[in-house]
């Protein structure tokens, strides 16, 4: 189980998200409590439509929750009606997103898609490009560095997207089915990488997945049922 003596990187208290209003309203999250600690890779499971993506989007300040409280790295970023003012800076500096689809920018090449993030954070071009090249190498797509996005395979694009999520070394990474477009070998490689990253940089990582291939690697996971998150222990199978 988690090391409760330390301060959580992510803390959710009674998080509620309601889509729409009146009779057509959908309450996707009905009071989620969750804690993720630095250096942890936590799985988030649940049937389709249970609210996994909704939860990540609330966490990542992409959509506003309806009620509850979010604390990231000790800072409250959302509390019922209130939210911090600079959401973009929060996303840029503190959160790495890996979505279900890569969402790369088609008019930039692979390297630029990654180096754009450090540049947006004010890093000099050379440093940003070097960082991007390093990450592409680690993710085994360095040979596609100058390629147009439209010329990448689904797996290559997803790995570029993962590199982008890591580019600013964020303390939190939110991954929504990151391994869906990858084969089982690459899926495990990505999971190992995320685990190494968590260990090395004390990154807190949440991975939403349906992938039976990688579920056993989690030491701890949450399962969403009826709009609430239920904590479970995982197998924590080591990477060979």
């Amino acid at each position, binding site marked *: 189980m988690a090391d409760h003596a330390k301060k959580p990187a992510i803390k959710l208290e009674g998080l509620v998200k309601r889509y729409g209003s009146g009779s057509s309203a959908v309450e996707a999250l009905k009071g989620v409590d969750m804690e993720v600690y630095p250096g942890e890779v936590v799985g988030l499971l649940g049937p389709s439509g249970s609210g996994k*993506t909704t939860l990540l*989007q609330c966490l990542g300040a*992409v*959509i506003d929750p309806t009620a509850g409280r979010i604390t990231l790295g000790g800072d409250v970023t959302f509390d019922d009606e209130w939210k911090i003012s600079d959401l*973009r*800076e*929060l*996303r*840029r*500096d503190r959160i790495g*997103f890996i*979505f*279900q*689809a890569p*969402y*790369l*920018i*088609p*008019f*930039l090449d692979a390297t*630029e898609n990654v*180096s*754009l*993030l450090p*540049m*947006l*954070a004010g890093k000099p*071009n050379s440093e940003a490009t070097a960082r991007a090249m390093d990450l592409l190498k680690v993710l085994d797509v360095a040979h596609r560095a100058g390629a147009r996005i439209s010329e990448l395979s689904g797996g290559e694009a997803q790995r570029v997207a993962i590199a*982008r999520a890591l580019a600013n070394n964020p303390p939190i990474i939110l991954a929504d089915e990151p391994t869906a477009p990858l084969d089982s070998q690459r899926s495990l490689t990505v999971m190992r990488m995320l685990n190494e990253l968590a260990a090395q940089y004390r990154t807190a990582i949440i991975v939403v997945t349906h992938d039976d291939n990688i579920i056993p690697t989690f030491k701890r996971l949450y399962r969403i049922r009826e709009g609430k998150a239920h904590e479970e222990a995982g197998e924590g199978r080591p990477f060979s």
Partner: protein
Amino acid sequence: MINLAYRDIANGFGRYMLTSLGLGLLIGVTLTMAGVYRGMVDDARALINGSATDIWVVQRHTLGPYAESSTLHDDAWRGIVGLPGVAETGNVAYLTMQVKHREKDVRVMIAGFESGKPGEPMRLVAGRPVTRSHYEAVADVKTGFQVGDRVRIRRHEYTVVGLTSRMVSSGGDPMLFITLKDAQEVQFLKDNDAIVGDRERLAANPQFNRPGVPGLLSAVEADRFSNHNVNAILVRVASGTDARLVADTILRWKHLQAYTRTDMEQILVAKLIATSAKQIGLFLVILTVVSTAIVALTVYTMTMSKIKEIAVLKLIGAKNRVIVAMILQQALGLGVIGFVIGKTVATFWAPIFPKYVLLEMSDAGRAFVITMVICTLASILAIRAALKVSPATAIGGG
């Protein structure tokens, strides 16, 4: 920082350049329209300055000789030449008509002048001045005539002996200078058939053709079929004399209208060209509106076609300033490329126009500033749409 505007353009370069070309042609047309107006004003100035004249004396209550018709008797100059401050006078006659050159009709303004007097064409670019008293002509180069060419004006053949430039009537017709005597004849003598007809009618009239008074018919003929009218008297004042004072004296004592150079410019530019200027002005306004609409539409479409990428940029933390800069740079880029194309095509096609097109640097400068303002205003719509899009739309949410 990567230049997002440029990278996006590079991705759809052909379309962007095509739009720039379209805008450029519009800007070219706009510059040319302005040039047409400038050309008209400049033609008017050249016409006024090209005759070494300080005062135009014309028929009372008219704006002659260019803006309205004016008729004076050709001895009216005698009353003027004696006035203090007057150095020289010259009678002139103007008429616009078609002349025949190499079997083709050419529309010209014929100017009759007295040799060595104000009204004589000054800047000869080829050939020599008119030296004989009959049937020699100096033509503006815009007529297309060459030295030595034969030109038919009504019943007579004229030889082009010299060429001048920038002598164009306010209607845009190039001028053809002949002696006053020739011009008077051309102006008042009709074609052969008409003259024969008139003579026969006169001879058949028993009142004039009286056997008892042998000289009467020829005296009446001489009066009817010759002409002692001119359209204006051009006056050159002695150096050091105020043309205004001399003009006022003529106005007061001679029952004639007298215009100074400033008055004449005023008449040509403010009165004669005024309607054309308004016409051109309206055109410029329409072209500006059309250009704005085109830029706005283009920038808006360009922005909407990458609204998803803009949402992604927001999602990964790009500030509004990055997004606004991208859109604005693309809009201004359109303007700059369009302006360069417009200026280039205008410079290339201006000489082809039949009328003088004067492209002024200051107009180009003004057009550039207006283009930049237009591009900025035109991108407001796109920028608003871009700033409104939620980062959640990038991942399919709202």
